[in-house]
């Protein structure tokens, strides 16, 4: 379990993260989303005890990261962003070195088990310098899994992997999420959507949205606009749709129309369908304007840029 309470980190005049609060539950994968430079790495470095916050607190696995750093470190596995490794060591040698610092027993067995878990046991004796980027990434992941920690913090673990490895790694993260607390950062939204039970979207150091991906989508779809495609000239059907109950305005976008409901609680689709069919038009497509995490992300991060003072627009307790 990770509990972040009003965490703030400033570097001189620059505020990297500002008043961040969120929770990552055990048995769940929490995605930490944001554009580059949003403050993801800073937050993770604070959670792992690498750097102290300017203010606020974070509890990881039941211990305060600042005052009980050693207890926290014993219970977390951390994969830093650019996967620093000792290139002169063999994969298994590196893991055994970390195991020794951690004071683990059966070091070779644990190192080999971790390599096996990431599918790299066959390269155990290779020097890290001779491994490919994807393999190094997996050595880093094995290092995070070495001591079977309660909490896993993975900073952009899928960067630099080929598509097949990305799929494998996502499966592995999902699997680990079942009995660990996993917090992983990414700026690839479809990834978060596939893997996470819960996402926290941050931008410029602020949380702009959090909740489970499905809830976030519902939140934005409600009050969201309607996509309408009719087998006719959009100009022609526009006044008809505008007359439907609950429709505030209609815009034409290329060969289709976008209807905006008059109120967030109204779903104008049945009304739109009815008026079109009554007017003898062939309704081809009628759906909420697709809101994928990508769009939520773009929308919330752009709003944030336009109105930096604005409160988080979607707060869903998942």
């Amino acid at each position, binding site marked *: 379990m990770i509990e972040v309470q009003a965490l703030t980190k400033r*570097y001189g005049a620059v505020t990297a993260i500002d008043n961040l609060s969120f929770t990552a539950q055990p048995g769940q994968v929490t995605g930490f989303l944001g554009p580059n430079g949003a403050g993801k790495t800073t937050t993770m*470095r604070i959670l*792992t*005890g*690498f*750097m*102290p916050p300017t203010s606020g607190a974070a509890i990881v696995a039941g211990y305060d990261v600042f005052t009980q750093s*050693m207890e926290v*470190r*014993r219970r*977390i596995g*951390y994969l*830093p962003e*650019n996967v*620093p*490794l*000792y290139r*002169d060591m063999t994969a298994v040698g590196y893991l055994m*070195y*970390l195991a*020794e*610092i*951690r*004071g683990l027993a059966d070091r070779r067995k644990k190192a080999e088990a971790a390599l096996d878990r990431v599918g790299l046991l066959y390269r155990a004796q290779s020097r890290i310098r001779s491994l490919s980027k994807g393999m190094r990434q997996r050595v880093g992941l094995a*290092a995070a899994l070495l001591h079977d920690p309660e909490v896993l913090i993975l900073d952009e673990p899928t960067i630099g992997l080929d598509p097949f490895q990305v799929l494998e790694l996502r499966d592995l993260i999902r699997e680990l999420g079942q009995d660990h607390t996993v917090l992983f950062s990414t700026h690839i939204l479809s990834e978060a959507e596939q893997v996470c039970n819960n996402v926290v979207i941050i931008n410029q150091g602020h949380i702009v949205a959090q909740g489970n991906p499905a809830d976030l989508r519902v939140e934005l779809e409600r009050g969201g606009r309607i996509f309408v495609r009719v087998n006719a000239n959009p100009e022609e059907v526009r006044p008809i749709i505008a007359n439907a109950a609950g429709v505030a305005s209609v815009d034409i976008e290329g060969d289709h129309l976008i209807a905006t409901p008059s109120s967030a609680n109204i779903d104008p689709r049945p009304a739109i369908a009815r008026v079109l069919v009554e007017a003898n038009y062939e309704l081809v497509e009628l759906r909420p304007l697709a809101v994928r995490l990508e769009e939520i992300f773009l929308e919330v991060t752009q709003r944030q840029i336009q109105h930096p003072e604005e409160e988080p627009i979607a707060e869903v307790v998942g």
Partner: protein
Amino acid sequence: MRAVWAVYKRELALYFRSPIAYGVALALFLFLGLLFTSNVSAGNGQAPATFLNIAPELLSFLTFLVAPLLTMRLLSEEAREGTLEVLMTLPMRELQFVLGKFLAVWSYYTLLLVVMLIYPILLSTVGILDIGQLVGSYLGAWLYGGAMLAVCLIWSALFEDQIVAAFLGAASVLVLFLAESAAIWASNQGILSGAADFIREFSLSAHYQSTLAQGVLRAEDILYFVLMIIAAIFITVRIVEIRRWRA
């Protein structure tokens, strides 16, 4: 202790695969070997025992080269490669980490010094050794080296660039070494006579070349080196902490 031991083993093993460490050893022993041969042949049986303190004295003088070369990558490389982030998120304190590193490089230095015992052993076959001078000069050179390695470690913690760390390390050792000359100059000029004594007490040569290396074992000289090691390690630990906080 466990973490110190783990770091220590890895670092010490690295010296045996490091071209710089072999380069330092090669240059040192080549130089000492030539010096020894010429010294012994020049003495021609008269008093070869004068060489007794030359080897450790020379090593301690050369620490302005040896210490920066051996320590420059120790901490700077960890920061540069980012491995500091891995290590400092393991259950290991900065002190354990720095101590492991320092003990490793001091051990390598100790090994150089132990190999240099070959000279007194050879000399003992042709004459009678001054045991006091032997103990004083080797013990002194050992502490002297430890102190200089610790001082150079500070620069390695401070800079990611090894070359910068090495240069500043060399400069610091030379300043500490030349402090006695500065003190002598100051007192000759008749200025700052109180300060001159003060500066002299800070100098390396006042605590080694003129005492320990002559076989004069004084507690204050040993304390000088030991305190310098402790102070330098303390400063290094603080720098590693600050580096990580500002990373």
